[in-house]
């Protein structure tokens, strides 16, 4: 356990601090914005696509199964990112129009 902490101390720092940042950032949000906020957060966890890209880059070019699955993963991750941001933008567009 101690060994694990020493090896990954930077990562563990990030995790702990981010938990607090996440809670702090949401703090007081009006109910009206819950849906766009959820949708925006949904887009942000699309960052998992970076993992899919790294997976592809680390895969041997003759491992076709891994490449196939990796390509699907990159596709799905991109879908999450692009769809997420665009749909959030559309929601917020409607709030803005009438000002």
């Amino acid at each position, binding site marked *: 356990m101690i060994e694990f902490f020493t090896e990954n101390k930077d*990562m563990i720092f990030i*995790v702990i601090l981010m*938990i607090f940042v*996440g*809670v702090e*950032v949401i703090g007081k*949000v*009006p*109910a*009206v*914005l*819950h*849906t*766009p*906020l*959820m*949708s*925006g*957060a*949904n*887009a*942000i*966890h*699309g*960052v*998992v*696509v*970076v*993992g*899919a890209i*790294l*997976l592809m*880059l680390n*895969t041997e*070019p003759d491992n076709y199964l891994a*490449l196939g*699955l*990796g*390509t699907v993963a*990159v*596709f*799905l*991750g*991109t*879908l999450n*990112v*692009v*769809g*997420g*941001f*665009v*749909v959030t933008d*559309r*929601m*917020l*567009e*409607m*709030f803005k129009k*009438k*000002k």
Partner: protein
Amino acid sequence: MHLDIQHIIYLLSSVTFILGLKMLSNAKTAKNGNSLAAVGMIAAMITAIVFHEGAVSPLVYGLIFVAIAVGTVVGWLTAKRVQMTKMPELVSLFNGMGGACAALIGLVEFHHYVGDSMSMSVILAGMVIGSVSFSGSMIAWAKLNGKIKNAIRFPKYNILNTIILIGLFVYAAWMVWTGTGSEMHLYVLFAAALGYGILFVLPIGGADMPVVISLLNSFTGLAAAFGGFLYGNQVMLTGGILVGSAGTLLTLVMCKAMNRPLFNVIFGAFGAGTTAASEAGPQGNVKEVGPSDLAVQLNYSKKVIIVPGYGLAVAQAQHVIKELETILEERGVEVSYAIHPVAGRMPGHMNVLLAESNVEYDKLKEMDDINPEFAQTDVVLVVGANDVVNPAAKTDPSSPIYGMPILDVENAKACIVNKRSMKPGYAGIENELFFRDKTQMLFGDAKKVLSELVAELKALD
């Protein structure tokens, strides 16, 4: 050198995520916040590709670019074309895609790390959570767009689900413990996680879907963070944990707005409560009103409040209601909208819908602001809402919705309720409001009867 630039960009991306999320919680800055986070995301993706160390075959680059290109086009078009009423299920769908992405990463990377118990734990955790999020989101999506109608509950489903959950945990722990490299075990675990996601969401009622989606959203964030741990990638870690923690808090905030403890949402306290409550409803006569009589009544009112609910979204009546508002305003009637925090299928859903039909932002009043106004209101028009105006929430401690804050429509001089039939709302309970003296029922599809109402009003002039 390369590595330093890479880390700086990852750091900046992480900052855009935090700032973006912060800006999203304020109406004025929300749109810019979303764009900012999007820029950070693009930067992170490009950085991951450009600053990769080591030789990579052109085939791999080609596949990555094709996948990103196709994903962008499909995601963009889907998001642009979807009707705003279908938006909640789309969020669920995209969330599922992210979960599936995390699950696939786990599936592929597993055999690289066999024997390394720490990495194996991280991979399996990411894969299991991603899979649960994926299959759960798909069920939520199917429920929201009506492909799955009712809450499906197996006997003793709570116990069954808990056993499966513990089983998943034990199985994964055993795999790490023995350091097995067997693909078979990996696929069994994968399938079991998918199954758990399905069983987890199936028994939950449609009205609780927003909470479930929000919860699954934070799951996917967690799965992304495990990926970040695996690759030692900071931006995945920050983005993932940020969404994981913000998503969990958002879930709790939503539960609070509905006065539904998260525990009850997941373990389905509604199911148990309905039997006791449904027979207790005070039966009596309901008064019906037709569009022509109602038109006259509205025409001579001073102040009208419209209470929109999910029925309005289903009937796509948001444009007609705006038309009604315009006509009434022309006749000198003061019109505003009372938005219950959980009106529709997602908090804020009604606001987005009404905004789509150009209803002014100032006319949408939140519950606490508008409740005192009902007493001075001539006519309240409830369109497709039910439980959020049920007085039992205040008066009947045995009611499953007891304690939920409601709109005090019963204080108005007259209350018109538009519904398709007398069927109870999602909570499955009778609404005493419908039988009150001041209440009149306007039966029919919201879009249809409101169009008739508008026509009658025009004819009155």
